């Protein structure tokens, strides 16, 4: 309930609305992906019934027998679901996805409309065209308005935050770095910037492996909780214990994190000196 309240009262109502609408749309595309593949007759029945309700002729095309179009249709809606999901995941970074998303849905609407004009006895085509045009408009309306707000807001202000797993990963990294070198502000952001450089790949892999090894280490000893759930004193005690482990590998894991922590600390502070002795 607390989380829902925070979500509802977040600074950007547009971002909140975007998340709600796109969640519905993502599900709206994800569910048919399954039904198109495994229960095509359901979709066909729904379409035929709609056509009948709108006063059209009986729709007798054997769509459910098709494999070819069925699979293409399933791939299409899966792609739409993926694109909606990507926008929800990180609207700022994945914003370029919006254009192909609107293009695909608008094109589908246009084709439905063309189908209706060619065969007016099937008004369900017109209904589908209208639905897809409205959906395209929803894409544009909610995503564009939310994007404008997101541009001006910090990640911390957004609920859910952009790239939640990446952010969580960074928070885990920050927790471990703080335990090895307790300084404020944390070092994870400095480390991330440097490790993302091309030459930093090996060190980056080593660092994140070390971070996760440390994060999960408490589960193997007496704590039975991951590192980020430990009390501060427990974290420090565990880090000290790992640093003096008999195992060379364990000591190296701490050494990698210590190296990145020290490097990050001095990468952001004012130079200690710049003149000759």
């Amino acid at each position: 309930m607390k989380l829902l309240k925070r979500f509802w009262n977040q600074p950007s109502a547009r971002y909140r609305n975007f998340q709600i609408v796109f969640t519905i749309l993502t599900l709206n595309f994800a569910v048919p992906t399954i039904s198109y593949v495994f229960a095509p007759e359901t979709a066909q029945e729904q379409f035929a019934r709609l056509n009948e309700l709108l006063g059209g002729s009986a729709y007798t095309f054997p769509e459910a027998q098709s494999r070819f179009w069925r699979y293409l249709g399933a791939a299409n809606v899966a792609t739409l679901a993926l694109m909606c999901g990507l926008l929800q995941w990180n609207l700022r970074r994945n914003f370029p996805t919006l254009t192909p998303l609107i293009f695909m849905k608008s094109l589908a609407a246009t084709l439905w409309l063309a189908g209706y004009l060619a065969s007016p006895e099937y008004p369900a085509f017109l209904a589908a065209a209208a639905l897809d045009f409205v959906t395209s408009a929803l894409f544009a309306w909610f995503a564009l308005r939310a994007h404008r707000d997101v541009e001006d807001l910090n990640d911390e202000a957004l609920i859910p935050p952009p790239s939640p797993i990446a952010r969580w990963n960074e928070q885990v990294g920050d927790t471990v770095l703080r335990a090895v070198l307790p300084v404020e502000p944390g070092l994870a952001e400095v480390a991330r910037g440097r490790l993302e450089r091309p030459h930093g790949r090996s060190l980056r892999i080593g660092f994140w492996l070390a971070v996760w090894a440390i994060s999960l280490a408490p589960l193997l000893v007496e704590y039975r909780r991951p590192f980020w759930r430990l009390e501060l004193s427990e974290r420090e005690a565990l880090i000290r214990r790992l640093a003096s482990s008999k195992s060379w590998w364990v000591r190296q894991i701490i050494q990698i994190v210590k190296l990145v922590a020290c490097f990050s600390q001095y990468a952001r502070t004012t130079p200690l000196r710049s003149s000759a002795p």
Partner: protein
Amino acid sequence: MNLTAGSGIRRRHHVACDVAIVGSGPAGATVAATLAEAGLDVVVVEAGAHFEPEEFVENSFDAMTRLYRQAGALVTRTQPAIPLVQGVAVGGTSVINGAISWRLPKDIWCEWVDADPELASVLEWERVQAALEEVETALGVTPTAPAVAGPNNTLLARGAEALGIEHRPIRRNASGCLGLGRCLQGCPRGRKASMDRTLLPRASAAGARILSETEVVRVRTRRRSAVGVTGRSSRGARVEVDARCGVVLGASALQTPALLSKSGIRQGPVGDNFQAHPGVSVAGQFDDAVRVWTGATQGHEVIGLRHEGLKFEALGFDASIAATRAHGVGLELRDALESLDRWAHWGVCIRASARGRVRPARVGGLRVDYRLSNEDLRSIRRGVSILGGLMFAAGARRISPSVYGWAPAVTDRGAWRDFEMHGPLAATAYTPVITHMFGTCRMGSDPAVSVVRPDFRHHHVDRLWVADSSVFPSNIGVNPQTSICALARICAEEILSAK
């Protein structure tokens, strides 16, 4: 410089020349300057980027992620994993080394010639001396001036003097050194005579072209003769360099054998006989400020035990590296950083007897198998013991040997004497680093045990020469840059005479 950056090469790029040189470090730059000045059309292909002095930053994190191969995370595959430090920039490792200059010792030359007398036909002692002389002149090698030495170096001198071990200011190719202590991050004032400041501009002035940010992936051969190299620009474009007279490899004792193997040139013990100088360090806390990040980076050395394969040097580096050497984690580490400026750092470089091997890894990169021998571990233990003794003799209040299984901080000089007898002999107790590498394409007259002939030509592939430290028959116990340049110069002379 006449330089084309690979970051600007987006489409297939083709270059023709007389000689293609792989690598722009000490070996590649020396060969390039010598051949270009003799009138040959030379193209140097370098994986790293070119940097102007003002682009070099102070903090090690930025420096390592821009200038060091794999940001310093290239390690041996055996336990303990030992970091292998190499530069990746125009100028190679000379951009980020301590600028230490040593002539090839006579005893090492005698070892080489005794083991294979045919080496003397090309590497006559007088010829080697003449080449060393020329290199020293070109690089402006001079002893470290007292004015820029700084406390870290002068304390080492004091300790050695007190113990009566021979010592001296290090001869360096940094004649206008300002003592900024930033050699390992690249000299921001351009005072270090690294290859990008000396021999490469000379080569370029004589017409040589440099292709930076282009990684050579294959040496091309036709009918057992090298005809060029194929590379890939940092933008992913294919780069072809056709070489009318041949190809010279100067990519280091790690990259050269890997490149030969990847090119299918696997005859002989290519990649075997990997030798190195593992180094370990000890830190000592003094009453007064030392500030290892000031003064000549490595300005003083203790040479009295070189006959034992031990050479001691002051180690100056950025505060971040000094911080990683501070003892402890958590609050203990944070508190230790408060007194960082009072710690001196000195290292010992071991002429190790261990032999390893270098192979291209299955998935990119390299696989370096290298395990220290028991003899090496005894040398390391003795080296650490002497370093501690030097620290106490210089007035250290306490030392931090960084040896697992031993007290993290030692304040009792008497207790420290036990270390040489009872210190651990497990490789995993120490944290060595390798900066000097040799022998993976060793030269010799017998193709069964060597990769190149005494005149640097490949035994089995015509018009292919190897000029870097991979041709050294053994490690040399001293800093190799000047010797690499000298032998590369002789290699270039041999290429000219063969032409």
